């Protein structure tokens, strides 16, 4: 079962319900992941400081420090992919969690197979040969896909892995309009039931990092009714 590149990849799983934690850990281990457990937010933050994981899976509803806070706390020091678990998809929790820095979300009851697919998608590296040029310039913005580096006016901009992959995806065809479905599939590996809010929140966050004036974006622009594009 270690045939999917998961071997050795550490997942920090933060969930207060012991039985859920136990069963999901078993299922994830079956998929080949190494799972570190945490029952509270405090435990999770300590554990991550001690042994940084490759992926963090956080249940939003935690006693004490809640999932949003754990998310923000980890995000302060790391660009590790974070998946949060919410009770329902149609609540503000989803947007709040994404705003707190999560890369993706899932709802209970978790389907371990789908969860594994999501984790794999988030861990995916930028494919070699995504772009013809090793360096892409957009005005003051420079992207080096293979090195995972983005600079603005020569200064490095810090992006999470997902934000970086989103930017590179848009940069692969400057001027081309990507629908939210396109981006969900290419960046998050989601099917047709993907949630467009993921794209929107990430685009918003990307703008605050790469745009001189995020309220009036010059590079990452909205094409009303169609999607987003990167313009030089």
């Amino acid at each position, binding site marked *: 079962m270690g045939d999917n590149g998961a071997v050795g990849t550490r997942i920090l799983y933060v969930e207060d319900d012991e039985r859920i934690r136990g069963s999901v850990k078993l299922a994830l281990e079956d998929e080949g992941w190494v799972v570190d457990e945490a029952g509270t937010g405090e435990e999770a933050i300590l554990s991550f400081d001690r042994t940084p994981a490759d992926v963090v899976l956080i249940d939003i509803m935690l006693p004490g420090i809640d999932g949003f806070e754990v998310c923000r706390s980890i995000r302060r020091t790391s660009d590790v992919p974070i998946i949060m678990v919410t*009770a329902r998809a*149609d609540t503000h*929790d989803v947007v709040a969690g994404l705003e707190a820095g999560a890369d993706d979300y899932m709802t209970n009851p978790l389907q371990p197979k789908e969860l594994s697919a999501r984790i794999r998608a988030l861990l995916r590296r930028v494919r070699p040969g995504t772009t013809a040029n090793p360096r892409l310039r957009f005005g003051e913005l420079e992207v080096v896909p293979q090195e995972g580096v983005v600079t603005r006016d020569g200064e490095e901009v810090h992006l999470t892995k997902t934000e970086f992959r989103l930017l590179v995806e848009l940069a692969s065809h400057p001027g081309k309009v990507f629908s939210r479905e396109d981006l969900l599939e290419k960046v998050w590996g989601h099917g047709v039931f993907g949630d467009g809010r993921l794209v929107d929140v990430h685009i918003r966050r990307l703008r605050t990092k790469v745009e001189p004036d995020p309220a009036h974006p010059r590079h990452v622009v909205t094409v*009303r009714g169609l999607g987003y594009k990167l313009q030089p």
Partner: protein
Amino acid sequence: MSADAPRNQPEREHAAPRYEIEGIRFGLRGRITLAVALVGLFLSVVLSFTTLTVAQDTLLDKREEGLTARIAANSATIRGNVTNADPSELQTLLSSLPDGGIPSLVSLDGGRGPVTVSVDARYGVESLPPELRSKVVEDREPAMMRFATDAGTLLAAGVPIPDTELFYFEVTPLYDVDTAIRTLRVMLIGATLAATVVAMMLGFWSSRYALRPLKRIGEAAESVAMGQLDTRIDYDAYAADVDLAPLVANFNGMVSALQDRIDRDARFASDVSHELRSPLTTLNASIEVLANNRDELPERAQQALDLLRLDMRRFTQLVEDLLEISRFDAGAVRLELDDVHLVPTVEAAVRAASDEPIPVEAEPGLEHLVVACDKRRLMRILANFLDNARKYADGATGVYVESHGADDIGPAPTVRIAVEDNGPGVPESERARIFDRFNRGDQGGSRGTDAGVGLGLALAAEHARLQGGRVWVEDRHDGGQGARFVIELPMIAPHEERDDEEPTDLASITPEEAESLALTGELPAIRMDQRTEPPRTITERHEAGTERT
């Protein structure tokens, strides 16, 4: 979870007594105003009438007294000065009398019959009423009377002059009294009308004042009906009023009880959601682990595991559907309008629902149609229809995307997506009931391994209604054996006009808001059923407050 209970819909019809006069209906306020005005009218009429009578009597009494005094004096003068009954002498005598009335005399001297003499022939004895003349002349008694002539009212009196055969008459015109009374009458009518109007205004104003608390309560009740459940009437403002304080207290108590009840329902749906999902997560993950290691299990255990997996899937779906439908009941649903590229979305839903290829046919011109709708709900409806076709027929035979003009059935153009199958079809009598909860239709008698519990179509109906659309089942378009399940949605143009940063508007909007957009012309009119949309405050409190506990 009652099947058809109306939700959040204020009852507009009341069985109230009707107050009407010849078809004009009066409200409480109108009735109070009318009553006060009638009392005002009655009182001022009585007062005016009394005033008029008293004034007239006083004026006439004065004139009658004056006339009586003058007659007495003049008749004495005549008696003292008369020497014979010669008409010319009598004429001279009358002329010499002091100014006052218009005097005249009747003389019976000489046996030639009565001789009359007067100063002014128009007011002579002949012009007087015969009763007056006969009373004075024949009965020899003093008499006085008022009588009307074309010129106006006259007052006339006559006395027999003692020791003579002479009878003295005097006429005095009451034209000035007539004028005074007429003027007074006009003034009093005016005053009566003014008093009535003032009374009416007083009634109107005082009833408004008296009814203001009722109006407040009415407004508060309306606000509650519209979903503002935190509406309360300020009790302190009415605490001193023995009549209103209990009413206000009871009203506030009632709304509090209602709010508690609705909050409790919403919380219950949310709690159930959490409570059921946690064990489901454990069960799903554990079964997954067992399935991963299926080969290591004895054969009987493998069979049990397979059954467990199948029913686990069914149970999970049932819980999802129940939670979804309980959210509709609790009013905790929210419409997320999205710009949806319709045909590719339908194709994606079809691909996701079935391994077998199902043809999707769109009317020419619809390939690039983008409509604003709730994508997740649309996908759920299509998934439920396709699932239904898979359960009761051998899967869908075709999916059709059609548009319908504004003139077809409603004021707004619509888009329809139809899922057809070649199963047994749905008999006419079942077509309405099939969208009821837990109704399997006639075919439902035999439970296949994968048969649902019949919530899918009910949910599809709720999802459609929330978006201002509807679902129904009919015959296949080619008339063949089978069923055709249709979802119809209002064709709302994508919101290009709006100044969003996002390509689509992510802010969730309520059906009321969608409707108001339609009213302002930004979107074509859509028909919204407001019943499913909850007061937003509850939803938010529900989500923010109870979900994270």
